[in-house]
Each structure stands twice: as C-alpha cells, then as structure tokens.
C-alpha cells in the first residue's frame, strides 16, 4: 500500500541470527552510485505516495557516507527515507536526532530475541540487545523532540532459533512504541510451526500494533491472511 524500494548500501547487515544465516563479509557501495539510483528511482516512481526507499544491505550507520546518502535521497525528491538497522547505533551520540534531521522518517529495527542473553548470543554481539532497545527509545524520543512523525517498525527473521520467542519479541517492540512488526519467515521453516507466528501476530494486534508476514502463502495464513502484504497491496511491491 505504501511501497518502499530497497536500496542496497552494501552487504553484510545483521538481519538474521548467526546460527542460521551465513553472514557475508561487510562491504559498502559507493555513495555516488547510490545517489544515482535515487535519481533513477524517482524518475521511475509512478504511484503515489512516494518515492520511498529503504536503505539496507549493510548496517546503514556503518556506512561512512550515510549523511551524504540520505541527503542525496532528499535531493532526489524521496518522500520517505527508511533505514533497516540493528538499531544499536541509534542510541549512540546524536545519531537518532541526526538521522531525523537529515530526513529519515522510517526505521525497521531488528531484534532476534526478547532478552539480552539470547539476543546477544544469536547476534554474536555482546550488549547488542540493550543497545538496540536504547536505540529505539532514542529514536522515539528524538522524533518527539523534533516534532516529526517517524515510523518505527520491528523486524524479526523467523528461524528455529527465534520462533518460540516471537510473541515476547513482539512485546519488546510494543514497549518501544513500534507501530508494526515484520516477521520474515525463512523458507525452510515447517508449516506446522507457524502457530508461533500466529501467536506473535495476535500479540501484535492486542498490543495495538500491526504484524506483517513475509514468506508464508495466503493459504497457510488462513484467517490471518490480512497480515500478508499480498492480501493488502494487491498491485504487488513492498508495502508497509
């Protein structure tokens, strides 16, 4: 419904648990090439509202030219600039307020577990859970101070290691004032284990958030098909 076009800033971002996803060595694209992509995208964008981009691939805050990249997106007329991030850097220095000031209005924050011990084990980064939660809080606070509307959306890659924590992870996002959670279900996950995804979706709704499910057919979602973008968007394309 509101499409975001993914724009790769590089590779090696920590979107999923290290026990499942093979992690590529981090690398970053040239900022000039990214800026050119914004211009092309803006010219090609043919359906309101937009254009909207989601900067992803590598951890955005690890890209040394992130401010210039966001500036190029603004200059290209991008309406919504989003970041897919582990949220750690959002809590550092003035990153949250700086991102908002430069034009970021949408953040998808990744969590792998609902507590520090498990999240840090799955991410392989000590202290990453507390830092991510602090980062989300910093973003919400900075948006409030700046009096800007910024959408915070949670993101979980659903694998055997995150599956049974999904409802609790959802509550962490709810406490952080996220408006939605995106559950990206890995292909190899057995359909019989979707009950945990369903529980997470229901947890989201009763927490006054929305849950999006990627990677599960409408048939398998049954009466929860509304949570699949395909059921909402119709025209196709990424939606939030």
């Amino acid at each position, binding site marked *: *419904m509101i499409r975001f076009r993914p724009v790769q800033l590089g590779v090696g971002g920590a979107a999923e648990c290290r026990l499942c996803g093979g992690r590529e060595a981090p690398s970053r694209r040239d900022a000039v090439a990214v800026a050119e992509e914004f211009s092309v995208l803006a010219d090609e964008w043919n359906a309101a509202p937009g254009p909207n981009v989601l900067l992803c691939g590598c951890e955005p805050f690890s890209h040394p030219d992130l401010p210039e990249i966001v500036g190029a997106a603004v200059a290209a*007329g991008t309406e919504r600039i989003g970041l897919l991030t582990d949220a750690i850097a959002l809590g550092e220095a003035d990153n949250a307020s700086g991102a908002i000031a430069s034009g970021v*209005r949408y953040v998808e924050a990744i969590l792998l577990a609902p507590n520090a011990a498990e999240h840090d084990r799955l991410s392989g980064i000590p202290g990453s859970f507390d830092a991510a939660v602090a980062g989300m809080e910093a973003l919400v606070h900075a948006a409030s101070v700046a009096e800007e509307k910024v959408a915070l959306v949670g993101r979980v890659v659903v694998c055997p290691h995150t599956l049974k924590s999904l409802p609790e992870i959802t509550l962490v996002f709810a406490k952080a004032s996220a*408006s939605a959670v995106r559950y990206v279900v890995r292909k190899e996950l057995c359909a019989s284990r979707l009950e945990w995804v369903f529980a997470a979706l229901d947890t989201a709704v009763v927490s006054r958030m929305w849950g999006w499910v990627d990677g599960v057919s409408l048939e398998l979602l049954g009466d929860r098909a509304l949570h699949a973008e395909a059921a909402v968007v119709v025209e196709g394309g990424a939606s939030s």
Partner: protein
Amino acid sequence: MSGEGFLKVALVALNATGYQSLALGYIRAFAQADPRLQGKVGFTTLDLSADLDPWWLAYRLAQLKPEVVGISVMCWNRCLVCDLCSILRKALPDVRIVLGGPEVGPIAEEVLARNSALDVIVRGEGEETFAELLHAYVKGTPVWRVDGVTCRREGGIVSSPDRGLLSRLDDVPSPYLAGVMQPNEGTAYIETYRGCPHSCGYCFEGKGYGRIRYFSNERVEAEVDALFSAGVRTFSFIDPVFNLTRDRLVWLSGVLAPYVARGLRLHTVEVDVEHIDSTAAKLLRAAGVVSVETGPQSVGPEALRICKRAFDRERFASGVAALKAEGIAVECDLIVGLPGDHTSDVLDGMRFVVGLDPGIMQMSTLHVLPGTDLWNRADELGLDMMNELSHEIVCSQEIGFTDLRRLEALGSAITGVYRARLESTT
C-alpha cells in the same frame, strides 16, 4: 436558590484539550439576553478538557455552589459526564442536573431511566429550551411544561412536546460579540448555518434539523472581524460543508480575503470534495484555508447505499488533486465497520485514499451515534455496539469482532507510515 429569585447556573463542557464549546456559548448568550432572566440568573461557564478526573470536576463545581448544572454531552465525554453526575448528585444533593447535546437528546428517556442522578434532558436545539427551563426554575413552575425537555414527574419520566426550531438564527446572540466567549488561537469556531444538505446514515451533523437555516451574512462578517480583532489568526468553521454552494463560497472567500492578507488562516474546514474544481480550490485558498477534511468514509457500494452517500471516484480524486494544487492539505477520512462493508471494501478504501496521497489520512471505527439512521436501524443492519460505553461497534454482519480489531490495527499502522514523510516534498 442563593438569594430570592436568583439562580446560580454552572455550564460545563468537557472538550478536547484547548477547545471551547460553542454550544455552551450560544446557550449562555441566549439566556443572558432573555429579559425575564436578567438579574435573576447568574452564569459561570467551565470549558474544561475531557481528560480530567470526575472527582476533581465535581470538587470544582461544588466550589461554585450552583443551583443548576448544565452539561453538554458529546460522544467523547459521555462516560465522564455519567461519572461526574453520579458524584455531583451525592456531593450536591439539591442541585438540578441538566444535560443536553447530541449524545443524550435523541435518547433522553433512556438516559434518564439509566442514571438516577439526572433531573432534566434538553432535547434538540437547546438555546430556547434551556432559557425556558431556567425561567420555570425561577418562577417555580413545572418543568415538564417546558417544550423540548424530558424530566422526572411523580416517579416517572415524561417528555414534553418537541420544540420547534428557531426561525431566525440571528435571535441567538453571538457568544463572541456578546462577550460570553473569549476566542482562543487555533481552536475558535464560527458557525454560519445549521443543518446539513446530506443525510449520511452514521452522522448526526444535521441533528435532525431537516432544513438549512443561516446566520445572516452581517452576523458572520461581524464574528470574523471580532475574532481577528481579538488577535486570533487561525480558526475554523464548524459548518458541515464549507463549500455548501458556489455563491456562498464566493461570498465567504470575499469576506475572508482581506483578513487573509493580514495573516488569517483557516484550518480543517469540512468540504464536499466532489464539488471542488480548480476555481473552488482557488476560492478556498483565497479564504485562507490551509487544510480541509472530507470523506470518502467508504468506497464500498453497499455501505454507500445503506448510508445514503454518493461517491464518484473520479470526481473525488479530481477534487483532492485540485486542492493539493493550491497547497491545501486534505484529510481523507475512512470509517471501519460500516454496514455493508466487507474487509475487502475497507482495504479498497485504504488503497484509494493512500493512492490519492491527500496529505492526511484518518481511520476510525464506526460509532453508532444516537439519533442517526444507523442507530435506529442497528438491529435490522446487524450492528452490535457498546451501548453503555462509547457506542463503538463490536462487529457488523459483514466483519466479525476479530477482523474489525485487525483492521483497526492495520489502519493505524498504515496511517502512521503514511504521515511519516518529508513534508517539503508533498
């Protein structure tokens, strides 16, 4: 009575924060202008916010030692008013508690039967009825003889005949011109007519008035000048349709334009967007309008039929485009849970509105308001709502409880992402 023949009246409105009740302003201005009440009735108006504690409200009222408390009841303060009245009855056993407003007038007998703390409900247009009621209190004559009230009598509940509508709206003094209300920046309203040309099944905007009655042009012009002279630079019009006719829009635009040149801005006027072309949009801009509110409420054919609403996708989109071209932000409203709407219709409505990129998108769940066609036909239409609370719909025939809650959450998330954007590029 606090003295021989003198009645202390407290008027209470519980509004969104920062807002004032124009209705109470009218009620007070009309009563104060009644020669029969002059020197016999004193008024205090409490324009307070609806997020206050009822105990604190009762405490504040008790300090005034009123003989009569009149409270305006709207859908957003209904529960708070009920709590307040129950406390007041015990705190001030002799006080007469009078309610009025769209939330209680159409179901007056039911409300009185449910809440023993209440004495009288003023039904319909309140100015004349409330003044007559006060006159009855002052004279000591029976309240049930006042047209337009529902009250208690000999252990029962009785309703007097409906009162006819005021034939001349100008008979109601302007609260601003009479000094009854001091207008606030950003939240002041002006009303130029009563009634609504539409009869949407879910809406009580027309309040059963049946026909449109206008305040005089001179009165409206004087109110605009009064607000501007009081330093107010942003206000709004409460009219159900600001662009009621082209002639009226031309007139209003001409009235407002000189003030616009000196900094006046109008926000959130309601418009019939399907009747806006580039000329009308230019007139709105000349009138200082920076934002408008409109439907479509639903795009589902069956819901539109049941709710007696016309909707033309192309005309609607054309109107929104014309407004955007003039730099006017458009708030498009959708109602979730209208009878006749399936989940797919609600999604279609969301896609339609998002695709228009209007600037502001608002989704709300259906509240079946007393006095509306949907209220009267709720059983027939299979609408299940919370009668004792906010009248919010629990489920419809077409959308069950669970899917309704899902649509609320989805709508909230979509709205949140939609509004999170760089304003300069819209």
